[in-house]
């Protein structure tokens, strides 16, 4: 269904100046309390209007008996009251002239009350407003200091937007973003996707100035074909990573042909993702790893990956995983190999994966990476540092940062293997735009995402 007004309504919903919380409460155990509390605590700068017919004021804010009695414009209404009262709250919100509603309340299609849910969508569509949910955690927008949800805090600030079908994951992942310093612009929980699903979110995010990379946690789609069409366009501008859980739902229809039965056991989602440039991720960690790499580094414009390491074992692991992830290491051209040979220790190996050996210093990394990144054959680099007794990881990281700056067109991904000693180095790398991972496997998986994205851009002529 086409809703040309929705993008604008959604924008207002994600960046409101005033919010009404229907079901605001003084009891800390109620979600209606949490939402008001979080808005205040996390510094929302717009106006907050608690709606509760049994309260005069909530957390120092004047409470209103109904949304229509608020003497101001309201951009967004949060609805956190029992399911049977939601329709009336929506009606009031529409009367008030809101741009969007966030229906936190659960107990709709997910428990078989699909007709009631459809009725909400009919009402919202008729009024031309955005409807998020039902059954959502809410919206977290770091670029608007807005925690319009019952997540305990805003995520770490950045330029990745995550859209999740699971609300519980949204709550858990907020903490994760802080622990792993993965910056989000927004986290949007889309719950039952009655009106706003992945398709609508992508249409909005395509032009959202605060979003540079998109991460999806997906269990199902409303309309697979439409998703592919929209994602294909959005992917041309911003990388999309999708963590897909569950398998293609082929329905109960028994396949009559051979092809039908074959299709039943492959992951058609991966086929669809490939068609639309969406990078598939396998699990949460992989999803964030890939989103981060795509966010920080340019796409890899060809299959020629070079691994540079100071430890042979880590290099072999990297080659193994490179093959597994569809990016097998190839022999470098003779001239490059010769140049590398001249630059490294006689005990090292100038062949891909290049082994600098354990006594490689900052200067050695710089010299070899400079040669590798300068060579037109090379499309991308995974640099590995295994903490060695005689070298300082911070020094190495600093060297990597300086050399990557000199070659901005080609992606470099780092793996730092070690304990506490490498953590400052990791921060330095990350703060300077270099994705860094604690294992060669994760670094190579991230590189494969850059390759897949580059390949997609190539395919669509970009």
């Amino acid at each position, binding site marked *: 269904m086409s809703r040309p007004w929705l993008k604008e309504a959604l924008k207002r919903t994600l960046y409101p100046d005033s919010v009404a919380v229907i079901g605001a409460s003084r009891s800390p155990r109620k979600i209606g309390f949490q939402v008001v509390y979080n808005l205040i605590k996390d510094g929302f700068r717009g106006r907050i209007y608690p709606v509760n017919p049994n309260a005069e004021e909530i957390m120092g804010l004047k409470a209103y008996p109904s949304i229509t009695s608020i003497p101001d414009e309201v951009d967004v209404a949060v609805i956190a009251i029992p399911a049977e009262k939601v329709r009336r709250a929506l009606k009031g919100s529409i009367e008030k002239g809101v741009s969007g509603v966030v229906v936190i309340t659960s107990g709709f299609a997910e428990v078989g009350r699909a007709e009631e849910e459809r009725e909400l969508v009919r009402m919202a569509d008729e009024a031309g407003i955005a409807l998020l949910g039902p059954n959502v955690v809410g919206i977290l927008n770091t670029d608007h200091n807005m925690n319009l949800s019952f997540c305990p805090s805003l995520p770490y600030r950045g330029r990745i937007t995550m859209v999740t079908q699971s609300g519980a994951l949204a709550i858990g992942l907020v903490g994760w973003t802080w622990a792993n310093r993965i910056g989000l612009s927004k986290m949007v929980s889309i719950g039952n996707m009655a009106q706003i699903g992945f398709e609508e979110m992508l249409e909005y995010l395509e032009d959202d100035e605060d979003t540079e990379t998109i991460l999806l946690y997906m269990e199902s*789609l409303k*309309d*697979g*074909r439409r998703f*592919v069409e929209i994602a294909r366009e959005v992917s041309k501008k911003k990388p999309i990573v999708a963590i897909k859980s569950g398998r*293609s*739902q*082929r*329905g109960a*229809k028994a*396949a*009559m*042909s*051979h*092809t*039908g039965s*074959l*299709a039943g*056991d*492959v992951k*058609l989602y991966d*086929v*669809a993702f*490939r*068609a639309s440039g969406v990078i598939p991720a396998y699990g949460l960690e992989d999803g964030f790893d890939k989103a981060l790499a795509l966010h920080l580094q340019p796409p890899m414009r060809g299959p020629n990956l070079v691994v540079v390491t100071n430890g042979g074992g880590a290099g072999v692991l990297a080659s193994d995983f490179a093959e597994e992830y569809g990016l097998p290491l190839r022999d470098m051209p003779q001239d490059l190999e010769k140049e590398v040979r001249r630059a490294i220790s006689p005990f090292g190996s100038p062949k891909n994966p290049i082994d600098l050996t354990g006594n490689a210093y900052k200067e050695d990394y710089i010299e070899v990476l400079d040669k590798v990144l300068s060579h037109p054959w090379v499309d991308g680099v995974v640099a590995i540092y295994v903490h060695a007794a005689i070298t300082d990881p911070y020094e190495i990281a600093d060297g990597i940062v300086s050399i990557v700056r000199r070659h901005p067109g080609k992606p470099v991904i780092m793996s730092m293997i070690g304990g506490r000693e490498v953590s400052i180095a990791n921060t330095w790398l990350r703060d300077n735009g270099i994705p860094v991972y604690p294992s060669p496997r994760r670094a190579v998986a991230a590189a494969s995402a850059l390759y897949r994205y580059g390949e997609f851009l190539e*395919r669509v002529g970009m």
Partner: protein
Amino acid sequence: MSDPINSIISKALSEGRKALLEHEALELARAAEIPTPRYLFTPLGSRPEPDFPPPYVLKIVSPDIIHKSDVGGVRLNIGGDELEREVGELVETVKRNAPNAEITGVLVMEMAEEGVETLVGLTRDPQFGPVVAFGLGGIFVEIYRDVSFRLAPIPIEEAREMIREVKAYKILSGYRGRPPADIDALADVIVKVSQLGDKYPEIMEMDINPLIAYPRGALAVDVRVILGE
């Protein structure tokens, strides 16, 4: 001018059939410019008079029989002199083995030369619509499930990529001194099947199995088409 593919589809649907008969499926393939061996449909009771030379393959044509060889409904390597007798015997055998099946006639087909057997198929996913599969015949598909998929319609470069993507690709690219198979001919069939899926929503599923690949060209030897409303 009426579209021959539409006529085949609507004829079957109007007769309440969900699967096209052998010769109708071949006709549909030909109309879509998918190469097939020469063939002749001989209605029950009439004399088989193919205008192409033997050896022939005979196949029973019946809306009620799916697994033809299980009821003795397939005969291979038939010469010109034996044709009429063999057709008669084939019908008798099937009547004995499947007494309740309605028999429409017999398909007489030019026997295809040996080549690499591949499969190209179409199915419809409730989420993603028409999807095309490619794989190598026999154990590669049956046991290893070595198949590549794309959403239809498929541009020719993607079709080539699909072929290269299967693990058994080596067999097509010239294995143990055999000449390489005509990848472009296979890719062309993939593209055409994908266009059928895109253009004709009534085609629910389609199997070309085998699509035999040769050093030059490819032939759709067995075509099955399942329709829906």
